[in-house]
């Protein structure tokens, strides 16, 4: 386990790289879900304004 973390002394560089990609994916997936919820909410509000 410590070998996997230290990666022969390059652990900092390797895990900063992989960590950044993982974080970017998490942020992107979260923003996708939020954007979809907002788009549906806006469409629902627009529909209710017209036919209350």
């Amino acid at each position, binding site marked *: 386990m410590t070998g996997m973390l230290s990666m022969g002394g*390059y652990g900092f*560089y390797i895990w900063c790289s992989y960590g950044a990609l993982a974080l970017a994916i998490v942020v*992107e997936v979260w923003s996708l879900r939020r954007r*979809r919820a907002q788009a*549906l909410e806006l469409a629902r509000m627009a529909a*209710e304004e017209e036919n209350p």
Partner: protein
Amino acid sequence: MTISWFKYSAPANFYPLAGRMIPWFAGAAVLLTVIGMYIGFVVAPTDATQGEAYRIIFIHVPTAWMAMFGYCVMAGWCAASLIWNTRLSAMMAQALAPTGAMFAFVSLWTGAFWGRPTWGTYWVWDARLTSTLILLFLYLGYMALRAAIDEPRRADRASALLAIVGVINVPIIYFSVKWWNTLHQGATISATAAPKMAHTMLAAMLVMIFAAWFYAIAVTLHRVRSIILEREAHTDWVRALATGAPAGQAGRVGTEASR
């Protein structure tokens, strides 16, 4: 049987099709990432000169390639939207841009964290690095220009022109390691020469490249569905979808032109 491709150029028809495709592409991306990481971290040996640091290649190369290919695909959708005046093409380009920018950023970031232990520096103004930074700025410029124009069809046309002009940067990135004397190494794999790396390393990288492709497709399809909802919010089918009312009450699918 003939498939009517033009049927799916209508956002109302493409929306459910994209929804059905997303789980398959997302599932393939997850599966390939697990396989690629296993080969990359368990099967592939330690590099003789770089030690373990080389393992950054398994995300650095796929993200860099996706940033470049993604830009070409985005510009292709932009060209299609200008030539055929199709709204869905412009929406696809709009949906692809944030993911392309994310890949460009991660390729620069992972490159920096690979450069530090191997070259002794996080950053140099080398031709490959600088042209990739310009690629990130082109993505951001495209998104900023879109955001600055309120009318969607005008935004489509203006940002499409910017994206198409920016394509000139992609061959510059690709050939930069040949044209200039760069600190960045030359191509590791090419169509004309045998790969300069061990088979297991190459396999892990190729699997991760496919994973990046499928991830990009899944994410772009998800985002384009939100964009369709945003831009078609005034149509009957989107309102029916959002309110849970039965679709097609008015018996027609509205378009932006019918506003």
